[in-house]
């Protein structure tokens, strides 16, 4: 099975501190691959480099066998990589449906279309509503985005990633700040899309990670110390020492 995403010897430092240290990783098509690690292990830095918001110092990133290391964020999105943000990142000024419709619009080539009102492009609006229904927000479509709760914003992030049609979804802590029930709903939501999209999941919530992930990689000080199935990771002594042992 060839990897959808292959990271090869990635390095990134900020002023002498190594945020990513000779990091190599493969993500197989269709899997949910979780990355766990203590705070400051460099998880978000990794996502930023994968989505093109930050440039690695050395190393290569291959997506479907193609070197994308030097590609800007908008190009990578066009290839099929979408990220969500740890801190909710939506266009607050626009409505809920507008946000989702924009992600669908992004799939249809350029948007230098000036004549027809975007809110009257039926197929975008209908597909947007369908996506909102899928994440359980069908009733909120026409509300201003800023009126929604944090948990609903997190769901919007997932809907946008789905809307963008990402083959690879980079989800940066989708459970961050969610309450118990909201987390459970999010796990159910992600379980529902499992297999249809490849997901690289960064998450602190261990219950969620062990419930969702096909494989788990453990990141410590910018370096992957172990990769394996949830059972293997649970059993791995080095991991228990470096990470799980702290809990």
């Amino acid at each position, binding site marked *: 099975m060839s990897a959808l995403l292959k990271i090869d010897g990635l390095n990134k430092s900020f002023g002498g501190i190594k945020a990513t240290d000779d990091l190599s990783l493969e993500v197989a098509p269709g899997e949910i691959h979780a990355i766990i690690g203590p705070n400051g292990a460099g998880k978000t830095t990794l996502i930023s480099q994968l989505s093109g918001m930050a440039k690695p110092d050395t190393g290569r990133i291959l997506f479907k066998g193609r070197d994308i290391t030097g590609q800007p964020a908008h190009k990578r999105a066009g290839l099929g990589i979408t990220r969500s943000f740890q801190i909710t990142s939506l266009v607050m000024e626009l409505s809920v449906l507008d946000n989702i419709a924009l992600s669908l619009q992004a799939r249809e080539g350029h948007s230098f279309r000036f*004549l027809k009102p*975007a809110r009257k492009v039926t197929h975008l609006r209908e597909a947007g509503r369908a996506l909102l229904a899928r994440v359980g927000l069908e009733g909120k479509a026409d509300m201003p985005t800023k009126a929604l709760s944090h948990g609903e914003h997190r769901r919007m992030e997932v809907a946008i990633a789905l809307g963008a049609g990402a083959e690879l979804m980079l989800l940066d802590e989708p459970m961050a700040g969610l309450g118990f029930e909201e987390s459970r709903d999010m796990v159910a939501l992600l379980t529902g899309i499992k297999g249809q999209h490849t997901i690289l999941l960064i998450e602190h919530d261990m219950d969620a990670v062990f419930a969702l992930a096909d494989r788990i990689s453990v990141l410590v000080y910018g370096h992957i110390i172990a990769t394996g199935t949830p059972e293997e990771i649970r059993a791995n002594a080095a991991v228990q020492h470096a990470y799980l042992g702290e809990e």
Partner: protein
Amino acid sequence: MTRKTLLSVGFILALGILPPIFYWTGNAFWLDLATRLVILAIAATSLNLILGYGGMVSFGHAAYMGLGAYAVGIPAHHWLYGGLEAWGLATTSGLVQIPLAVAVTAIFALLTGAICLRTRGVYFIMITMAFAQMVYYLIVSIEEYGGDDGLVIDTRSELPGLDLDNPLQLFGLAWVSLVAAILIVRMVINSRFGMVIQGAKGNDERMRTLGFNTYVYRLVAYVISGAMAGYAGALLGNFTTFISPEMMDWSRSGELMFMVILGGVATTLGPVVGATVFIVLEEVLSDLTLYWHLPFGLLLIAVVLFGRGGLIGLLNGRDQ
């Protein structure tokens, strides 16, 4: 139609109907004032496209009006005194001058926008200001076009079926242009392109991770806005028949910004309401005192300190 739409349409219609009535009843002065108002409202509307909807705070919009005006003045000058015949630019034909105004300002917007839009925030404000000042000094340095002293447009643009020497027809053209400008901005904003521009204003990072090259979308909006302001400048040149670098001074750009903010950013009618209030205030205050900039400046400070959302915002507040 909602009450707001009704009010908006009523306001625009009144702006088109009342001035000619004043003119026919012997108050030619009010038609003059209204013509200037309507032309400035076109420029303010174009500025609102990038400032209000796109979040690009351009402090150099007056330069586009100035360039547009000189695109009328310079061919008219050569038509009278010779030169540039080989380029076909010694002419009083509006069918040459007005497209020239639009083309020149679009190109200027493209070239400077490509640089300005690489930067954000304060850098962007200052750089747009600096490029406008560059045009100002450029015109000042060209003696043939009057330099500091400006240029008289002896013959207004000649358009088929229109006589711009007739103040009513000039006003009519300006008003129709304003309506067109409002509709164009509305169309652009509501289009897919407009959604991207508004999205990039609210969350640039998100838009880029979705696959939009926001730089290019912004640049296109910047060019559209600049070209519209250039068109307004061509009208302004025809209205004043005297143009000078002073019309590109950065305080003129500041006034355009003030109109947009005063009326309400990112609202369809805000810039028009802002321009109206600005012109009326200017008229009333300058009638009262030579030092009208003093109360005017105080008012501006007060609007910034206390008046969030502009006049349209107040209206909306009452609506809800």
